[in-house]
């Protein structure tokens, strides 16, 4: 793998992670939060693949990535199911409004 490819990959994964993190920090809608989390994890996936390729352990990197895809899908499914339930019982998807449930 050439240095240019690696650079492109790193820039790409940093961009994905940045977008995901920004979303997690700024977004208030629960669905959007889950979307942001997915974007963040996709960045991490890309990082795994890139690291595997760069260190010559392509198999390791890709099998780790496959594992993360499975786990991540489960997270998304459970998260969305929770969001549906939250909307039904509380009537809102605003995470700041949900924080009031603490009291």
């Amino acid at each position, binding site marked *: 793998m050439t240095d240019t490819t690696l650079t492109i990959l790193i820039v790409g994964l940093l961009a994905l992670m940045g977008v995901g993190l920004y979303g997690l*920090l*700024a977004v*208030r809608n629960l669905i959007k939060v889950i979307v942001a989390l997915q974007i963040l994890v996709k960045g991490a996936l890309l990082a795994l693949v890139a690291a595997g390729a760069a260190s010559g352990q392509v198999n390791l990197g890709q099998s780790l990535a496959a594992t993360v895809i499975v786990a991540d899908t489960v997270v998304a499914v459970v998260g969305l199911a929770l969001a549906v339930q939250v909307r039904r019982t509380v009537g809102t998807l605003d*995470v*700041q409004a*949900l*924080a*009031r*449930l*603490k009291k």
Partner: protein
Amino acid sequence: MANEFTILLLIGLPWLGALLVWFTGDSRPRFQHLLAVLFSLAAGAVALSLIPGATDQAVLTLNVGGIFGAFTFVPDGLGVFLAAVATVVGSLAVIFSVEYMKGEAQLGRYYALVLFFIGGMVGLVLSGSLLLMFFFWEITALCSFALIAFNNDDPKAVAGGLKALIITSLGGVGLLIGALVIYGYTGSYEVNDFLAGAAQLPPDVLSLVAFGFLAAAAAKSSQVPFHTWLPGAMEAPTPISALIHAATMVNAGVYLLARFYPAFEGVPGWTTAVVIVGLASACLAALMALVAQDLKRALAYSTISQLGYMVYAVGVGGVFASQFHLLSHAVFKALLFLGAGAVIHSVGTRDMRQMGGLGQKMPFVRNTFIIGALALAGLPILNGFWSKELVLEAGLSGGPGWAFALMVIGAGLTACYTFRMVWLVFFGEPRAHLHAHETGPAMKVSLGLLAFGTLTTWLLVGPFGEMLAETLPHHHLHILDLGELISEILLAPATWLALAVIAIGLAAWWWHERLAAVRDGLGFLARWAEADFGFEWINRQVVRLTRGTAEALTATQTGVLNWNVAGIVGGLVAVLMILLLAWGA
């Protein structure tokens, strides 16, 4: 004979018994009683058979590997002796329980915990590895907690249990830190390796370990300033108080100090600190026992006070005296607690103000209780007399004079509160309408055997000393045989001084009506002692501070997802910064 099989048997038998009693189920109480008695007696027999084979070599080594090292069991004199105390007093307490706990709903839980405790205590004193010792140390603390809180629908019992658990675990941290530091510097958890090579540790590190162990010992043995948990522990069923909070677990702290004395005696300030801890506990607790109204609490304070004598003895270099007093105290205090248990079981209250005149209704309990009380007061020729005088003599020859003077005054206070207790419970006019009845055979067996022990254990001083001296190569004990003990004690000026003070203590109680003016003059002291000398206040402040801090910190838990993510990102950035800086450096 000491081989790996007997060691496994000694720990395994009570634990197996615990499982069997548990699985028997509470629908068959007779079978549960029988199983518990059989297994505890078997463990007692195995422990006694181990005594002739005491050795300073590890007889059982379990190679766990990794950072856990090897778990070894060393049945040396100190360990075997305490294992015998734990199992023999344990089986007597179990026999006593057959009657005391009759009709109790959850016998399975009770006996399982008692037997689990006995096995844990045996493991604690026999283990030759510091880490393993810590594990067993916490097992005993856990059993103590669960048994104090046995009546778990009584909030006082639960609170007492939690308090005991928190304070002893806090002290246990000192033991863990000490063990890990020793491992870090020597690469071994072996107690004997450490005792042989303690001088190679840097002085600062050694003193950290020494004071860590002192904190652990003070918390476990309920010494000042950690003593406040023991009176609260009196909510436990009385056989538990006799077994765990008088005869065995509370001795673990004294055992720890005695075991590591050769390594720490050179640490500057350590022996002085030990003397002060023992002294403060002995005298303050004696004053508190003098004003206590609850029979069991009075006994608890007296336990703290007597443990103070043992700690003091270690501090002045009298390791043998401290262990000899430990033996005497384990026997006579178990007797006193079981006697108190028989009284409480019979009349249904622990308040001494309501008792009085019970001696006529329960002559057997009265007689055995008086034997125990005489030993506690330190009157000849009972076991408490010889061992307490030995402690005082060690204090006179090896410690500061002012400490000795205070300890002798403490002995006078002991005599005074002991006779107050006996008088309030068994003599005088009945102060309330209490239905009292004489005890049954199971209680009589336990009380009788312990009373016999109180009269006779001091005769064993010769073999006891030989066993300790032969298997503790680092301690250089000053041991005595029976003839030397008698002549040394009877010729020592400390003995006569102490006996005179004890007589004054007795006289003070006898004429306490005439001394009313003095008593009123000392009223401020009594009120201060009733308030636990302010230690309870310190406890409450610590609890309040912890709770206040925790409540203030809830403000950081916004529950807002964005803030949580910000926290995670902040933590990540901090870790990255630290890594970068560490690389840069």
